[in-house]
């Protein structure tokens, strides 16, 4: 009986370790830091070259697009800190001035080069803020 328990225990330990190691090693490559604009801009150089998701709001009148292309340039900000962002591709419907976006990509001296853009999409579960101008609600 104890022999059996030991076998089960050993199998469990081996499996758990194997999964743990696999999980940890695969995690390393796909890890992304999730930061708000002001956190990144506090020390931009520290973030150069890292996989990064940046969360902020689009600065009004900063959105520009190269003619006849899908190359976008805009600023995102939070708490007064502003970050210049570049994105090539189709933007979501909800991408506009003052909308909340999460950009995935990397940072360098010129700004943030996004490979992916998600705009907070509206949900049934969160209605329009009751007082416009208050803290942008954490979800949408």
């Amino acid at each position, binding site marked *: 009986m104890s022999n059996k328990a030991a076998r089960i225990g050993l199998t469990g330990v081996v499996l758990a370790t194997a999964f743990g190691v696999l999980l940890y090693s*695969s995690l390393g490559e796909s890890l992304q830091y999730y*930061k708000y604009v002001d956190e990144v801009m506090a020390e931009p150089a520290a973030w150069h070259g890292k996989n990064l998701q940046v969360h902020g709001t689009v600065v009004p009148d900063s959105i520009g697009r190269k003619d*006849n*292309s899908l190359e976008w340039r805009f600023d995102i900000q939070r708490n007064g800190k502003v970050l210049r962002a570049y994105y090539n591709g*189709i933007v979501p419907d909800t991408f506009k001035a003052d909308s909340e976006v999460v950009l995935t990509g990397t940072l360098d001296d010129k700004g943030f080069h996004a490979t992916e853009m998600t705009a907070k999409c509206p949900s*049934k579960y969160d*209605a329009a803020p009751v007082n416009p101008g208050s803290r942008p609600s954490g979800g949408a």
Partner: protein
Amino acid sequence: MASLGYYLLLAAFVVCAYAAAISVAGARRRSRALIESGIGAFYLLAAIMAVASAVIVYSFVVGDYSIRYVQRYSDSVQPMFYKLTSYWGGLDGSIMFWVSLLSFFGSAAIYVNRERHRELIPYVVTVISVVEMFFLFLMIVHNNPFQTYLTESPTDGTGLNPLLQNFYMAIHPPTMYLGFVGLTIPYAFGMAALITGYLDDSWLRAVRRWTMISWLFLSIGLGLGMIWAYEELGWGGYWMWDPVENAGLLPWFTATAFLHSVMVQERRGMLRVWNVALVITTFFLTIFGTFMTRSGVVQSVHAFGDDPELARLFTIFMVATVVVSFGFVIYRLPLLRARNELDSWLSREAAFLVNNWILLFSAFFVLFATMFPTLSEAVRGERLTVGPPFFNQWMLPIGLTLLLLTGIGPLLAWRKSTVQNLRDSFLIPVTLGVVTAVAVALLGVRVWTSGICFALSAFVVGTIGQEFWRGARVRQRATGTDVFTALVGLVARNKRRYGGYVVHLGMVLIFFGFAGEGFKQKEEAQLKPGQQVKVGSFVVRHDALSITDDGQKQMITAHVTVLRDGKPFAEMYPAKWIFRKHEESPTTEVAINRGFAQDVYLVLATFDAATQTASIAVDINPLVNWVWMGFGLLALGIGIALLPDAVFSFATAPLPANAATTALIFLAVVLSQGVALAQDTIPAIFRSPLERQVAGEIMCNCGGCRLSVSDCGMMNCHGKSGQMGKIQQYIAEGKDHDAILATFVREHGGYDVLMQPPNRGFNRVAWLLPYVVAVVALLGVAFTARRWSRHEAAAPDAAPIDRELDARLEDELRNLD
């Protein structure tokens, strides 16, 4: 009205508390009267919740905007259909909807089982009541849907977001809730068994059906959510491992595991602790999923807003659930000892065990990756996230392994498979799989994961086909009938097993569709009129951009011609709609050309009206439709498993007199449903036959009725009157029937404005299907009638050719269902 609603909720809470307390008292004193009183109180709860639901629906319908919830989720121009569905549109209402559904489900479960499981029922009432009390408490102290404006109330509502005014979005949440709520019933029975100590397998029998029903709703809910994302959000896919999606997937994994392991306990008396633990875990995950999506713990593109107070309440409830539930499991461990041990790893129970571990690991992994940002913030003080590629990297091999097991499991015998067994049963399926693998390799499929998936799919289909065929042959020999009747009889004798195989077949189709993802092609291009872009074997040409206005919204439509190998393939109209009330967020109207081989999926991303330039995203999505078909087959399989015995009596029971006649009449009625349907239309006045014809072919755009313009019965329907006006206008312009329909399709930007798709291409399937079904049914009727009218032939000596297989089948057919 608002105060009436609130008092009803208070009353519901009191009744719930009474039901919980009196049931415990009744069970302890063994007083029939007290127990009956508890059951009665629970029925009363259902009645109260029905009335409260009626109150809130009534408030939406009449537009009582003094109630905050009504004001925030509807407005006066909203179509009636979406006014009704706004009930579960917001957080507060969705909790109330949850409570109502659970009270109805619970009442039904208690009613059905009150005699059969008399010793469990009082505690079942208690457990469900306590869960209900938690959600009622939430509503009363924190999320009261009947809260009113204290001072002046607004005169109109803010309206539901246009993205969510979509047919699938209206029916997807209630389907998910039905699945979630239904999983409370197995938990309640499991807990009742633990509390009372009646831990024989009878509680399993009580919950089997409920788990299947909930699992069905959960699966359909997930499928509908995928279709909604695919058709409405316009990013070309259907699943992106968003926390909200994952929340629905977690209990699905554990419920699937339970549906398999429950068979091991029934057959072999093993895995008893495991099954109780799975039921508890599944229930916990439904609550946890709700918590995750409602409280702002997890960041998501469509998270639901921060609510620390809600998070705190949920945490207390979840901790209490885990401690109490598993406390009882530990307390009852001596009673849960397994009656048997695993004989061999080459047995079906071992296959089930491995399947369970993998499913449970999937749930654990998805939970871990979903919660990873929150975990890392708690541990490292820094928010780290993992994206969809991480999920895919892990779930791909896991999914393929599960698919492999789906093929292996049914081929193994219970207890221990002999070498002879293995050779007999694996030969055909493995050959099929290998042949497919070789064919796939020779055809030069470049995505090896998809290639493996195709081969495994063939293997599983081989397994299932062989099971049906061998079973039917054995039964045919034993009963001396024809193969068709033997097959029906086989399914009837063992609905759960063969229904399960149909579900497996559905899963194979779904995986087949997933495998198509590997061949996805994607292109984005900025096109002036006349310019084109090549994607795979398709060429997409932008012809023109049109801007129209229907009063409610501005519609910018790109007119696109798709060519394949130089030949015209389809005309498509991707569009952007800008609603008057929501000008800041235009909606994307995707154009999809569906096919068995692939979908051509076009999105109008941006446009420049001055130069007629459009940037168009083109997705070629191979095999996507197989996923939806798989979900359909899955529902059919569960349906078979859940059918009452009586349905199959014609094939199993000795034939009563006149049965054939009755069956013929019944089938005739079923087949002629068109006649019955034609009678409930509301007469409308048409000026010409053409007008009547066109109105019958255009779908009313009021948003929810899905009826034709001539059939939409809504009073003063704005969609209807506008469309009738257009039809009359076009007739006045001298357009003929086809031209009018073409104009509607162009203006609307898609064929979904028509009641029936035009008769060409893939659309022919939709046309053909009813006729195919009718022909098959007629053949079936003729066949059955002929057989039954024959004199009972003397049954041939049932000399089994394959004694071992016969023995195995009979052994398995016994008492399984």
